């Protein structure tokens, strides 16, 4: 076939084909699907092996020393999210999580107040086929108790207490036996800076054209 020829017959066939494909698209509905197939055995074994969650301390470490990129997701209501959220956390409610486009290999870490909603969200996202989804064990309640306002264990060494205090201060909190002396603590500025830096880092590289 001579591809340089301007053949009216060929063009007519192409035009009809395009119009047909466009026409049938009206009745085809949306290509995205909300029904899924689940491998329940696989999900059960992930949970039993405890590969479905991270501890609050692990999350703190992931934020402070970013080795890889991940997305932190707050699944509570938007008011609670506005009042306080872990630095860098995005907000999505469960309905949004059922349909928002996530990349299949993205690492997602979910948290809620106590952990229940996050676990339900975990199940939804795993059902959608996402591979690397985790919850924060104990939710924000355990985050507050272990990271933000930790009580030093009895008999803890000075170094251990310093380390706990450093982590707490990074996020704007403090060790319970070292409360801040003034209202505007350097710690809260520090955490604001860190939060901004963390959030800006994630915006940085873009897929341009």
């Amino acid at each position, binding site marked *: 076939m001579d591809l340089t020829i301007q053949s009216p017959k060929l063009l007519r066939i192409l035009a009809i084909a395009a119009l047909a494909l466009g026409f049938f698209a009206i009745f085809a509905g949306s290509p995205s699907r909300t029904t899924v197939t689940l491998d329940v055995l696989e999900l059960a074994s992930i949970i039993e092996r405890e590969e479905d969650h991270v501890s609050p301390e692990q999350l703190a470490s992931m934020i402070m020393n970013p080795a890889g990129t991940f997305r932190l997701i707050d699944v509570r209501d938007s008011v609670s999210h506005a009042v306080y959220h872990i630095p860098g956390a995005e907000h999505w409610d469960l309905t949004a999580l059922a349909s928002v486009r996530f990349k299949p290999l993205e690492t997602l870490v979910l948290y809620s107040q106590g952990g229940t909603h996050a676990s339900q969200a975990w199940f939804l996202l795993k059902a959608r086929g996402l591979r690397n989804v985790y919850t924060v064990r104990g939710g924000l309640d355990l985050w507050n108790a272990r990271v933000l306002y930790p009580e030093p264990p009895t008999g803890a060494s000075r170094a251990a207490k310093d380390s706990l205090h450093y982590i707490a201060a990074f996020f704007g909190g403090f060790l319970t036996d070292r409360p801040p002396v003034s209202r505007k603590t350097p710690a809260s500025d520090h955490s604001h800076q860190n939060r901004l830096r963390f959030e800006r880092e994630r915006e940085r590289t873009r897929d341009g*054209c």
Partner: protein
Amino acid sequence: MNAPFYEYGFFGDNFSLVVALITGIGFGFFLERAGFGSGRKLAAQFYLTDMTVFKVMFTAIVTAMLGLFWLSWLGLVDYALVSVPPTYLVPQLVGGIIFGTGFVMGGYCPGTSCVASSTGKLDGGVNLVGMIAGILLFGEAFSLLESFYNSSSMGAFTLPQVLGLSEGLTMFLIVVSAVGGFMAAERIEARYRNGSDNPIA
């Protein structure tokens, strides 16, 4: 089928560069096949003597648009994982105006100026150099332009959303417009072009 393949981790970033190279070769090949290595042919679009730019661009858009929809419908691609360029309405409008000026002045768009340069057109090379200068100019003036650059951001905003129509219907309307446009283009060419039907380089 788990596609887009890259999004499902079938290969990593290094191999994706090989994919990029191969894709680019296909891209450049078809651009030149259409005659877009010639600035005169590209500019002729805007003097109504040669509507190839319109025909090629909109055929490509319709082909890819319908192809993605139907492949997705068949379950062969997850089209939700294809990144839609975000909309920044006013900067894109103004950018389009400035770009359009440059297009007919320079005679090329960035992709075709590469094709022109690689097929020996010296003006294509000069056009490329100018484009690099323009990017540098933009970069240096960025602090002045930054707030405008980021204005009217609407995220991934699609025609079905703004028209309030289903995707299928929007696509059908685009196909109808394209086919109508092609028929009009044939008539316009016949009227304004004097001489042979298929001009050679």
